[in-house]
């Protein structure tokens, strides 16, 4: 958010020895459950490590980059996203039933979960705070252009907007349009252009100049 927060991994809990309400609450939960032998604190560490280091938007970026460079893979992704994504090794929790939706010159896709926080963890990792918070969930369906403007994204007035509300167990990945000036790029170079937001629909893929 600001340099003040940078590197801390903290929001406004600057006093590390001062328990907030939630710190105390979650500590009580973990302590009681551990004393009862119902949870393994090392399992919690392993879960956190998985989503801090292994499962994140780099997975989705690889899917998109491959789709850009390989028409056959793109076709497979369109037809059976779960299997196509699994072929790259990305499976599991909150990615069991995947759908890929492709931006076109006519249509921009935007993903939301108005009812909770459904998000394709297997390809994007844990959702950002704003994705789970009331402003985005309330407004994405009624005022998508206003929401996109807050991300600095202004679409042309004629561009159609399709909002996908994840009300069931299908999890959506937006495949943004391939930026111009990327002919001959390797999949690794292409993946560098694919941001998390471009796969939610709150952004576009970066141009090679912007990525530099």
């Amino acid at each position, binding site marked *: *958010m600001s340099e003040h927060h*940078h590197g801390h*991994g903290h*929001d406004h*809990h600057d006093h590390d020895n001062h328990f907030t309400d*939630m*710190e105390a*609450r*979650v*500590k*009580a939960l*973990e*302590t*009681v*459950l551990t*004393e*009862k032998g*119902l*949870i*393994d604190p*090392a*399992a*919690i*560490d392993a*879960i*956190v490590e*998985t989503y*801090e280091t292994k*499962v994140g938007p780099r997975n989705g970026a690889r899917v998109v980059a491959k789709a850009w460079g390989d028409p056959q893979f793109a076709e497979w992704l369109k037809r059976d996203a779960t299997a196509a994504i699994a072929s790259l090794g990305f*499976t*599991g*929790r909150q990615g*069991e*039933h995947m*759908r890929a939706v492709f931006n076109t010159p006519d249509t921009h896709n935007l993903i*939301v979960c*108005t*009812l*909770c926080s459904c998000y394709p963890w297997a390809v994007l990792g844990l959702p950002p705070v*704003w994705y*789970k918070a*009331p*402003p985005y969930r309330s*407004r994405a*369906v*009624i*005022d998508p*252009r206003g929401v996109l403007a*807050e*991300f600095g994204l202004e679409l042309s007035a*004629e561009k*159609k*907007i*399709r*909002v996908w509300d994840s*009300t*069931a*167990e*299908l999890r959506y990945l937006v495949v943004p349009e391939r930026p111009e000036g990327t002919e001959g790029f390797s999949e690794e170079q292409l993946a560098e252009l694919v941001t998390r937001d471009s796969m939610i629909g*709150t952004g576009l893929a970066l141009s090679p100049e912007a990525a530099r």
Partner: protein
Amino acid sequence: MNGPHDLGGQHGLGPVAPETDEPYFHAEWEKRALGVTLSCGAFGAWTIDESRHARESLPPATYLSASYYEIWARALETLLKRHGFLTQAELDAGHMLEKGAEPKRVLKAEMVAGVLAKGGPCDRPIATPPRFVVGERVRTKNFNPETHTRLPRYARAKTGVVEAVQGGFVFPDDNAHGKGENPQWVYTVVFDGGEIWGEGADPTLTISIDAWESYLEQA
């Protein structure tokens, strides 16, 4: 239920405020809340639908002012108490006071990779063919159950078009309340923005939901 979670179309909740270079967690307790929630899910004592219902059953003022990890932690307390794994007295004391229910499974560190990689698929075979076909016009039902549903309020009693038949899936409206999985066909139904929002709607907007078959009738 018409709870605080059903947010589509509400006004006055403020700007989205995306955070540049957002960290995965904003405090240590969020990490523990994630891990404890997933670990307890592995007990096999409740379904994802029951846990969603526990979250949306929080008091509206609490729900709307809480971060999502707080919503998870508070709902988890409800679930753990409901299923006999701990008591409020234990949470107040911060320590075990008595023996509670036994889970089917305790998630150990060495099981984490396998459990996360496996996930929890909820597609199910359905013996009968789908009632609706792609391209068919359908109308969503108007209902207001006090129990769990995944048909948002903004999309009730609206006419749209079936865009895809997505397969058979566990029916959350029943499964959240221990009434069984009772799988149904799920359809992607797309609506014009004007059908949903009426006057002043963005003319370039279409919205889709994924709807279980019993949410729909022929238009």
